[in-house]
């Protein structure tokens, strides 16, 4: 079956099997930032924006992308660089494997919540697992990023 959608601002189309998940389709379409870390929607590594909302692409049939706007980190390179610098400044990206999904969700959070508290941040990002950093460095990066955004 054919599915048509907007991918990172450009029209995209693909011939898919009905049971194809969005994660696999996106990787087939060379969006390699989208990672698979589990089989059970627990890790957050495959987070993409679907019509602006953060979504787990491993749990979304690709057919449901029909007519929607899908954004991966490939489509948010400028924002990724801006926030990524804060993360790298803390050394908190470590192995980097969870970074794309985490950064997608941070960007979504910053768009959705105004001036979130630490507890709100932790709750919003609770589904983004990281085994390297112990999360503290990620939180420092977010706080510094928010501070600079607030100052602007």
């Amino acid at each position: 079956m054919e599915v048509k959608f907007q991918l990172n601002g450009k029209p995209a189309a693909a011939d898919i099997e009905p049971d194809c998940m969005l994660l696999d389709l996106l990787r087939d379409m060379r969006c390699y930032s989208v990672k698979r870390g589990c089989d059970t929607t627990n890790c957050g590594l495959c987070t993409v924006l679907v019509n602006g909302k953060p979504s787990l692409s491993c749990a979304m049939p690709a057919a449901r992308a029909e007519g929607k706007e899908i954004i991966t980190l490939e489509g948010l390179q400028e924002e990724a660089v801006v926030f990524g610098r804060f993360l790298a400044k803390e050394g908190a990206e470590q192995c980097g494997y969870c970074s794309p999904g985490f950064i997608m969700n941070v960007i979504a959070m910053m768009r959705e919540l105004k001036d979130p508290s630490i507890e709100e941040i932790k709750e919003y990002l609770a589904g983004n697992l990281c085994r390297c950093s112990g999360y503290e460095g990620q939180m420092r990066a977010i706080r510094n990023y928010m501070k600079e955004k607030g100052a602007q």
Partner: protein
Amino acid sequence: MNLVNTSVPKVDSMALVTGKPVYTDDLAPKDCLIVKVLRSPHAHAKIRKIETERALKVPGIECVLTHEDCSDKRFTMAGQTYPEPSPYDRRILDDRVRFVGDAVAVIAGVSEKAVAKAMKLVKVDYEVLEPVLDFRKAKDHEILVHPEENWKALCEVGADNKRNLCARSETQEGDIDQVLKDCKYYVEETYHTKANQQAMMENFCTFTHMDAYGRLNVVSSTQVTFHVRRILSNALDIPKSKIRVVKPRIGGGFGAKQTVVTEVYPALVTMKTGKPAKIVYTREESFIASSPRHEMEITVRIGADENGIIKGIDVYTLSNTGAYGEHGPTTVGLSGHKSIPLYGKAEAFRFAYDVVYTNVMSAGAYRGYGATQGIFAVESAVNELAHKMGMDPVKLKELNMVKKGQKMPAYYGETATSCALDKCVERVKEMISWDEKYPRKDMGNGKVRGVGLALAMQGSGISNVDTAAVTIKVNDDGFYSLIIGASDMGTGCDTILAQMAADCLDCDMDQIIVHGVDTDVSPYDTGSYASSTTYVTGMAVVKTCEVLKEKILKKGAQYLSCPPEEAEFDGKRVFHPESGKEISLKDIGNQVMCGNEEALQASESHYSPTSPPPFMAGAAEVEVDLETGAVELIDFAAVVDCGTVINPNLAKVQTEGGIAQGIGMALYEEILYNEKGKTSANSFMQYKIPTRQDIGNIRIEFQSSYEPTGPFGAKSIGEIVINTPSPAIAEAVYNASGVRVRELPITAEKIYMGMKEK
């Protein structure tokens, strides 16, 4: 010195945070055969027959391989220096399966779907056998996990497959029984740590293909690039010269990838078919057929005199290596060698162990590598001893802990050449407000808070074994290539080694490019494990830079037509102060590419006869609900002595990450098996690692000593950081609730039942 001890961002950071395709699965050729493993549903069985005909008829299926397609020579998947201490006890596929999930057949085809369909059509006739599932009964059990005649141990580790023994040993100094008998205070208790998953975010994965020279090329997510080459050579029974292994970016390892978990399967397929092949484990496979921490049961006998001086420590460890012996004989050693020496005044010690085979998933290397288990036991016993004496446990630790300059008889007789453990304890007490909070505070709402503190040590590389070489060459325009065999797995060794090189060569970071790891190109390095990279490979960088600087000086002097002893090199130019003549490194770099007979590069190797321990103190504050036993971690403070801190931010994140993993081990994580040997811990649903809402606050600081044998005074940081949470949290829970939990994880049920019994 201006880059060492500064927080330089990782050299690969921007690629990682922008999601570039730099990991194994991102790089695999798109026409790879997809490889999957058919796994045993039985904990112990003989394979009578495997019918593959129907599976082979599925369109797109390339091959279905069984034990008949594999070499019958046994090998170990443990990534260790040859001759490996781990017994040669496995084949790629065997006619006996030894745990639920053990490999039965390898299926390769053009798509995931075709392979999944074919897998259902492979028919296996099993003769189901009784498994050995209780590790306490495994030694000398009538059922043998490895009855085969061609099982062999390369090293004298006390292994005996006819007794289900992977290793055993006993060492002793002084008359431990007499010393303990004479002690006024004495504790004897048994502690139980569980198998845990490293749970790095990138699952195990590998792809393979043949190159233009007819050699097997392997790209894999591994910590032990050179060991992979040897292990594949053993497994496939082909010469090492026929294999090339490349390590790209790695999505975390923590020791999991110090075992060759996936490499053999696509390698076998590519060797049989000549076609590119890849395997990417699902998270379920990474949970059920991998290389978790060794489960250990540790009995500690410890005694002190009337002044609170610890006179003797006796440790017996029973370790469960599971179906295969990967890292079995070596992890267990650390449970004594890296716990007993924390207490410098003991007059006698004994350390004995048995490592047994059972029919559960093979254990492997996991950050801390046995030290984590041993330190939970010994630190808990020391805390219990203090309570028996009516003494503040921290006071007892302060009276007895190892100090700089002390000889450590239980640590191979090494001397603590650098040790700021006393300062670590002093500072962590302040950070957690020990004197104010010990032992407990009733919160007045049915909840009680308690604090607990633990000490830890680890090593820095394996003494006399771990070997690292690096090569540095000068390129045109004078930039350097730093070529290493150490495997950055996210820890940042590509960066910290470049920092050291930049300081040694008096240049900026951007003058140095780092390359690693490719067994065809990189100089030999044992790999990134045993907390060796900063300490061992770092020293190889320092040595190589010294030699290279001399060569640059000589070459520059030649171009300036002056004697080298009169010339100087300042990182940017070679100059002759007397005549004022100079030549830039850029010009030297360009000139050596024209009419030059000596390559302007250097390569030095390093090993260390000692393994200087980093030290650490960690303190936990917990809140226990007296109604339910539910425990919440409020705060965790830690202070680390890793010698000179090469990159404070990276060291800090290593520490915070290790503590978070340690908190998972202490409170949540365990691999449970049912009565048939099947684990339910096969996803993040059942095997819960901490989220950012589960870890309270982690606060860390450094108290640096200076290690004279390390590069810039550095020791290791990677492993020690996982060792304090379990004993510190167990002690905090005791102080809050009066319940001593000696079996991890420390769950609400155990605390509740403990409170009920009282």
